[in-house]
């Protein structure tokens, strides 16, 4: 089902949490709401689900305004961060609950429960009590229960944040597989940029109650609309420079760009620079080497200024702290933002 938000604003006890948020999620798409904690992403989720009423704006499901629908009639099902499994019910009863509530026949919900447990790889756990299960298992039960509610839109509120790294990978794969199988429109709330980049069809980056950019992972990373967005994915140093007649000029380099004249900031992410004997940029020395297992992080400093760059090189590392190096520039990966 297509979900669309039009100018949603939410104020809770006088404080503005969401400020005119608009967003359209295509039918069957998987998108992420990415942002630091407190940016309003969980509030947005609850607003979609009808738990919080927006002070302005509307929620549309398949083009139909859903504002008058109470939470239990929306079919916008949340998997809460704290899971909220019912402690007085067995695993099977938890999963059957939404089906019972919509009046499904006994045979139907028994059969569907078994199916769903298979889907989340928990066959044979029907009669277990919630407290007898591990964190990863509980997560699967919560997911199965949400699917049992036949969601129009599945809303995942930081579902993996409480798991170990290995378990998290498994759960991500499971969620993606199920989402593809059932073709459910899904919104994942997360603060983990890797998670958002690797899982989503599109990412909506939120900050201070607004969506700053809504685009595919590649686009949002490579063509961020602002330095704030770019910094969220990778905070990197920048240099001020000037574009004149299609050429960007700054202290350390100059190259051809397709930008109108003006003052710009060039963001130099680690991927945009590399150490190269023939590189055009000189006067940098190695100030710090940090071993990270799969590679080394090299910090480079310019002698005369305070400019500091970072890049990664694979093992083995042939540099020592203090070595003078030349730097090459991967011009296509330098992000330019107008200073005005």
């Amino acid at each position: 089902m297509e979900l669309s938000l039009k100018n949603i604003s939410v104020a809770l006890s006088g404080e503005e949490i969401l400020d005119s948020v608009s967003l359209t999620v295509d039918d069957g798409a998987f998108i992420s709401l990415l942002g630091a904690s407190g940016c309003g992403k969980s509030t947005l989720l609850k607003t979609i689900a009808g738990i919080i009423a927006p002070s302005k704006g509307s929620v549309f499901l398949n083009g139909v305004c859903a504002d008058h629908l109470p939470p239990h009639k929306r079919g916008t099902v949340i998997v809460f961060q704290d899971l909220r499994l019912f402690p007085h019910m067995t695993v099977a009863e938890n999963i059957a609950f939404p089906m019972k509530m919509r009046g499904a026949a006994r045979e139907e919900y028994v059969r569907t429960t078994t199916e769903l447990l298979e889907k989340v790889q928990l066959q044979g756990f029907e009669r277990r009590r919630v407290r007898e299960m591990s964190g990863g298992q509980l997560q699967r039960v919560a997911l199965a229960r949400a699917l049992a509610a036949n969601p129009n839109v599945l809303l995942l509120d930081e579902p993996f944040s409480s798991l170990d790294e290995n378990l998290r990978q498994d759960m991500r794969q499971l969620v993606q597989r199920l989402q593809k199988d059932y073709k459910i429109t899904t919104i994942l709330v997360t603060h983990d940029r890797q998670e958002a980049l690797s899982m989503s069809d599109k990412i909506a980056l939120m900050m201070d109650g607004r969506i700053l950019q809504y685009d595919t992972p590649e686009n949002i990373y490579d063509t961020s609309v602002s330095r704030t967005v770019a910094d969220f994915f990778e905070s990197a140093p920048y240099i001020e420079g000037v574009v004149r007649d299609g050429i960007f000029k700054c202290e350390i380099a100059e190259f051809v760009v397709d930008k109108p004249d003006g003052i710009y900031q060039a963001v130099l992410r680690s991927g945009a620079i590399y150490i190269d004997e023939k590189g055009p940029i000189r006067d940098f020395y190695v100030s710090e080497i940090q071993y990270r297992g799969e590679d080394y992080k090299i910090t480079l400093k310019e002698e005369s200024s305070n400019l500091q760059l970072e890049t990664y090189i694979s093992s083995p590392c042939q540099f020592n702290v203090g070595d003078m190096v030349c730097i090459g520039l991967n011009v296509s990966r330098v992000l330019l933002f107008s200073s005005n």
Partner: protein
Amino acid sequence: MVSNVDKRKSKILNIVAYGIVFFIVVPLLVLSFWSFAGRWPWPGLFPVGFTMRGMEELFSKSANMFSVVTSSVLLSLTVAVLATVIGTMTARALVFYDFKGKELVSFGTILPIIIPGTAFAMGVHVVFIYLGLADTFIGVVLVHLIYALPYTVNIMMDVTAMTGDNLEIQGQVLGIPPFRSFYHITLPLIMPGVISSVSMAYIISFSQYFITLMIGGGKVKTLSVVMVPFIQSGDRTIASSYALLFVLSTFVVFILLELVIKRFTARLNGI
């Protein structure tokens, strides 16, 4: 959080909530009104004139009213403070330690709520006569304590469990002796619990009628003991005046208690 559910307030539930509040508040208003009611013949809805008879009864005729109120308040304050201290000690034992008989003790703390008051009162009366505690202030304090403790232990256990002893242990690690760690670190943190514990114990003690009469034998006069015969007698003006005095003195004591405790807390960690 303000949720959508709040916005769709159920009318029926609203009627329930406001209806019950109405039934709570109206008797209190009528009570204040009736304290000053003069003659009030059937079937008038309002009394014929007002009188200070109730107030005179309280303040002039029985000149010892002032001493009854002070001794009654003093008694209940003693109970409230002791019950809170013992409640805090018990709560710490039950929350922070594992020991033999722990379940028995925590079950035992609720026994006074469950066991009928008359059984205990009549049984302990003889014991107190034998110990020389009958008809004494201390005797009454002891039995009131027994009835206040189930509540104070419960309140202090909640707040003790919530506060934990991490910060207190941090204090000890920083070289502060255990009791001073408790006094300067934990005590300010559990103050909200202390306030509700003291208030609860106070009101339990201040309200006791039967057991005070049994153990105090009429020698230990509390406001409750003095008030009940008037309620029984049917002189509603005087009974209402006593009840009003009871309610107002409770509120005054509560306000003062909170002030004193807040002051104390502020001084505890002031520089």
